[in-house]
């Protein structure tokens, strides 16, 4: 392998890590729902992509600056998050995790169908911010827009951690996830807390969806399923419930993807990512930042 190949390899890995920032953003929401709330919501990625699609409605006929579209996507995400809570979790008794799993699957199918019906299945161009900013670092080029996504991810992480550990809502959420009955007895409203948390994770998801659309350049209905799988992988590798873990895992997965692709080509790339995950699960099931051991 000569120098040119080596440069290409490092550049590839760097590109992968940067694109992993989008997985990281999605992973944050996933890990919150799965790790903190202990709810399996398989429709999360679809809802995020759906929120990004919804934000495109803002652009019909009018030229709107990209940041406004992103904010609108986040708001739509919040709204969809509330819908997810009411439709999938509110009315199903807590003792039926399988039922909520299946209901989120139903919602995933529904959201996908709504997107396909509204857009007739075609790819839609998505506005991007800083898409032409390329930061040159020696022989390497780094995508400015992806660094922005990474920065946004870090900011979200800080905001969410503050929310979880410094506010009453965060306290209520953590209490509910650890001991729901006791939390109720303390006067915490199950409904309100859950609904608010879903809205917040929805906002994060909407932003993630917008960032993914901006990073790829187009939105396509093909995105939901692969993103769901990636989000799950990132959550598991990062550790259920750990937000910094989700970010690091997102970057890792992005980097490894490109690493495998460089050596083994695109047909075998995903195979190795799956094997990587399997290895992780066998040797370090708690993920990178395993949550504090307690009653399961």
């Amino acid at each position: 392998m000569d120098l040119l190949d080596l440069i290409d390899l490092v550049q590839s890995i760097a590109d992968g890590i940067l694109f992993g920032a989008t997985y990281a953003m999605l992973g944050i929401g996933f890990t919150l729902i799965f790790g903190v709330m202990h709810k399996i919501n398989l429709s999360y990625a679809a809802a995020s992509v759906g929120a990004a699609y919804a934000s495109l409605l803002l652009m019909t006929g009018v030229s709107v600056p990209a940041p406004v579209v992103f904010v609108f996507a986040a708001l739509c995400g919040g709204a969809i998050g509330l819908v997810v809570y009411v439709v999938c979790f509110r009315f199903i008794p807590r003792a039926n995790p399988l039922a909520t799993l299946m209901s989120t699957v139903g919602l995933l199918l529904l959201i996908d169908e709504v997107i396909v019906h509204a857009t007739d299945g075609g790819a839609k161009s998505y506005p991007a911010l800083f898409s032409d900013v390329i930061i040159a670092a020696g022989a390497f080029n780094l995508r400015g827009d992806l660094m922005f996504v990474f920065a946004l991810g870090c900011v979200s992480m800080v905001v969410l951690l503050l929310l979880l550990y410094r506010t009453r809502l965060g306290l209520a959420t953590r209490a509910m996830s650890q001991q729901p009955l006791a939390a109720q007895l303390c006067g915490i409203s199950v409904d309100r807390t859950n609904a608010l948390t879903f809205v917040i994770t929805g906002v994060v998801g909407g932003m993630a969806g917008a960032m993914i659309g901006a990073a790829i350049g187009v939105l396509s209905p093909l995105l939901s399923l692969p993103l769901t799988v990636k989000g799950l992988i990132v959550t598991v590798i990062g550790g259920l419930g750990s937000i910094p873990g989700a970010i690091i895992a997102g970057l890792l997965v992005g980097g490894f993807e490109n690493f495998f692709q460089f050596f083994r080509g695109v047909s075998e790339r995903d195979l190795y990512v799956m094997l990587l995950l399997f290895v992780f699960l066998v040797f370090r099931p708690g993920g990178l930042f395993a949550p504090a051991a307690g009653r399961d």
Partner: protein
Amino acid sequence: MDFYLGMIQIIGVHTLLGLSAYCVLLTGQVSMAQAGFFAIGAYVAGMLTVLAQWALIPALGVAGLMAGAVACAIGFPALRVKGLMLVVATVAFGEAVRLFFFNFDYQVARGEIKMGPHGGEGFRQIRYFPEHGWSTLDVALFVWTVVVLVMAGLWWMDRSRAGAVLRAVGEDELAAQSAGINITAVKVSAMTVGGVIAGLGGGTFAHYTTHIEHIQFGVVLATFAIAYPILGGLSNVFGTLLAVIFIQGFLVEGLRFLGDWRNLLFGGLILLAMNLRPRGLLDAKAVAALRRLFPGGKERSGAQAHGAQ
């Protein structure tokens, strides 16, 4: 008539897929890997009948056994984790199998045509049924013989100690372990049985669609596999059958007259079903109620309903 027989075939094969997930769900594990075992069964059976010119039943048998063997091998590492982690681990495994077949190329020349799996293009011309003069009725009867045998086997197992042990592990692992049950052995056995059933289903699937490719065995199929038992209820095997009839018969074919709305209703009705009947269409209460309809069932159903809840 052919149309209804075709539907019966589809319902049969999907019931096998659902039952393979049902087995594993009984032990409280959600396995998204059944589509992977289904794929293994499909490719193995297809290759045996097309490339090695085997008869159908031995080919299916080997397909089932191979899928079961892989399930057993996977079971040990996978079942070390629980809950969401298991979902992800099995998704990863299912995808790994699919990607394996995406890259799998094994062609044998027959005259001037090359037959066999051809990577991304799939495995075409698995024409055992038409070439050996099987009519649609023959195939439907064959599929349902397999299904009935599997259902009978599972029903019998449910009534025996094995079923009780499985469900005990599913209900409360700690208690089961305290009672002296070897959790790992039980879970891996359930996974293996599920793998065998999925392999049988996959082998049949390959033969009645005549063409298989990796895309068919992805996350969507895996989701359907667990959807059937969850939607149908885990009380007994008929729940899964009912769910398959509901989804394939009603949602897919019955709602055709709704045109475009059918697909929107698909997700919507699953949502509704889960909200209205969280324990499945045929949950313990429904089974008890059905029992009361039969003579002599009243006393039994009373005790069962109380016990099952």
